[in-house]
């Protein structure tokens, strides 16, 4: 196969349009997050720049680009400059194979999911390097945390992706979506959805898993020494990753651009896909507005003791259902039954003891009675 000049031009144009599209997505996400969190927190969010503060992200981007780019004295300059790119490039490259609709995709690969897994793992290197090269203790702590966290959560993430691959019988995104024409995998495999969503949150470092850049502990983690445009690149990557996890939830579990009432025209399908993705994004923001942050040991034990065993059980459930050819609803039932176990354990051993403790304390309170007034 020969590569012609036209091919090069076309690929460049496609990549440029993808970059532009993703930048617009990131701008919209930052605006959406600030507005949505504002509403959750009894504030109004940005209002000054443009109507409803719509131009605020652009103002922020301009500000970041013009800020002084400080490099700390003891930093390893080459790695310090390289690290943001190592985080950004993988999160950008995986979009080449993620379809927005059946025919809106830059390059549909038969091993699309494999490609996604292979590339998304790479961003760990960038985070660790950023922490290492900053010559700051907080940064190195954050870098170590990110390595531990991201590697631990890759496993349940990949295992649940494998389960969807087993259901669809293909690693091609379009086949996976086609497999959900009638029933989305979220219904077939609620356990998988929960595992995937939780590990996805951990992969992108969103609350309650924002441990590696926790502001109140390691003050920004790997990014603590970055400023200006380099920090903006991290920021860009973070939001692209958020959107990516949301898009994957939509593609793998919510049926992507399909709905149960037949095929949609391309534009409407894309709109449906984006609507689903933004819905998942809003859930991610909602969690950010509600939950505190886990501790690093709790994070690790959640992954190794809960999510990884559950993700293997999930694969076994799918395998059993496929092997014996049982009807689809049996998988839903089995999945729900397994999902109930950790929820029950959490309520039984965490929530109920705490509430009982509070009740006991309330009874033990020392009452000071008023003296009878003369």
């Amino acid at each position: 196969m020969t590569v012609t000049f036209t091919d090069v031009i076309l690929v460049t144009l496609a990549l440029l349009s993808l970059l532009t599209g993703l930048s617009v997505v990131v701008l919209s996400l930052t605006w959406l997050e600030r507005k949505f969190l504002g509403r959750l927190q009894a504030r109004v969010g940005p209002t000054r720049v443009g109507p409803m503060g719509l131009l605020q992200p652009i103002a922020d981007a301009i500000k970041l680009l013009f800020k002084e780019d400080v490099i700390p004295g003891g930093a390893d300059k080459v790695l310090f400059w390289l690290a943001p790119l190592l985080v950004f490039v993988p999160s950008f490259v995986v979009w080449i194979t993620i379809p927005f609709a059946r025919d809106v995709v830059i390059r549909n690969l038969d091993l699309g999911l494999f490609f996604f897994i292979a590339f998304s793992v790479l961003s760990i290197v960038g985070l660790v390097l950023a922490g290492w090269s900053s010559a700051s203790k907080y940064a190195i702590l954050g870098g170590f945390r990110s390595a531990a966290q991201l590697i631990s959560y890759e496993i349940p993430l990949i295992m649940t992706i494998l389960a969807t691959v087993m259901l669809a019988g293909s690693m091609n995104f379009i086949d996976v979506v086609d497999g959900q024409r009638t029933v989305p995998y979220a219904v077939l495999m609620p356990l998988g959805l929960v595992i995937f969503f939780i590990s996805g949150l951990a992969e992108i470092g969103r609350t309650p898993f924002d441990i590696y850049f926790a502001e109140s502990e390691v003050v920004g983690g790997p990014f603590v020494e970055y400023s200006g445009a380099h920090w903006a690149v991290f920021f860009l990557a973070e939001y692209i990753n958020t959107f990516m996890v949301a898009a994957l939830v939509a593609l793998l579990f919510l049926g992507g651009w399909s709905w149960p009432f037949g095929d949609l025209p391309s534009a409407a399908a894309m709109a449906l896909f984006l609507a689903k993705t933004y819905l998942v994004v809003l859930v991610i923001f909602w969690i950010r507005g509600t939950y505190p942050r886990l501790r690093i040991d709790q994070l690790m034990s959640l992954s190794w003791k809960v999510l990884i065993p559950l993700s293997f059980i999930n694969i076994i459930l799918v395998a059993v259902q496929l092997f014996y050819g049982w009807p689809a609803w049996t998988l839903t039932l089995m999945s729900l039954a397994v999902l109930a176990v950790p929820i029950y354990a959490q309520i039984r051993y965490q929530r109920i003891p705490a509430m009982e403790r509070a009740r006991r304390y309330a009874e033990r309170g020392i009452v000071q009675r008023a003296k009878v007034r003369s």
Partner: protein
Amino acid sequence: MTTHPELETVDMMLNMGPQHPSTHGVFRMVLWIDGERIVDMEPHIGYLHRGSEKLCEGESYGQVVTLFDRLDYVSNFNNEQVFCRAVERLMDIEVPERAMYIRTILCELNRVASHLLFLGTYALDAGAMTPVLYAFRERERIQNLYEAVSGARMMHNFIRIGGIKEEVPADFVPRVRQLLGELRRGVEECDNLLTFNEVFLARTRGVGVIDSDTAVSYGLTGPCLRASGLAYDVRKDHPYEIYPNISFTVPVGEYGDCWDRYWVRVQEAYQSLNIVEQCLGQMTEGPIMPQMRRIARPPKGEVYVHGENPRGDIGVYLVSDGTDKPYRLKVRPPSYCNLTALRHMMKDAFIADAVVILGSLDIVLGEVDR
């Protein structure tokens, strides 16, 4: 904790503060860490030292009140009150009943404001960003009332030796009643959002445990001591002003972990609202200042007076030489005494716990450093 004896590992020294976002001001902790575990920690204070106690010796008694405002700058009324009570005790002044009720209302609302601030910043320390905004919204209502009453939102200088500065606005009572309803809903909202949150429980239960004996030996007071299971409350054990006329419950914890300290504070906020409600019912018309000389000149002597601050037992030791300025004034700051237990609590904690434990002590650096 290394598993290979021939491999020598060194603990990393991590300097947390004074510019760290979650050290509540300018507190500095030097942590020696082994991975994520804290091996040892050393607190450093004094970055906010203004020499308040020495400054007091150069001001007349009336002016010292303004310095007490700046000790614990989130519970100003409680500080003013304890100093004024010390001078009143020394001079044998009978405070008019109405003044005492107004003082108590303001102080208890200040306790609610302080605990709301704690709740919000504690959630922030644990990583939740929403409760702080709810808590500040509610605290704002209290500060608006303070502004109407004293003209200032924080440094009020409203409680005077012998009484209070001036009569409260005409709509004070209905306004406080309305405020009580709003605050009850507000505290409940924060309470519902955070108290039994799964992640919050995981972060705070069993963290920073201190038993009651150790707590006493470190001199802990206030919510930190009560969380360990000892029901010591100055308002109950050494009642002052109008507290004997008020019924209220002293919430007591059991384990002395971070969650208990948090829970005790939230319950105290509810109790304070009850106290204010009772005060409103019992308050009568009357004078707000006794007949006394404009410039206070206590007789020669010394006095120690203490009261219940939102952070614990605040004490004032006052020595008078008969002039219009204190000869010596010593404050027993509850935050400072509570801070001594920090090292004990942080034994074998994680770095993330360090923040949560420090937050649960609810220190105010203005008071620690004075």
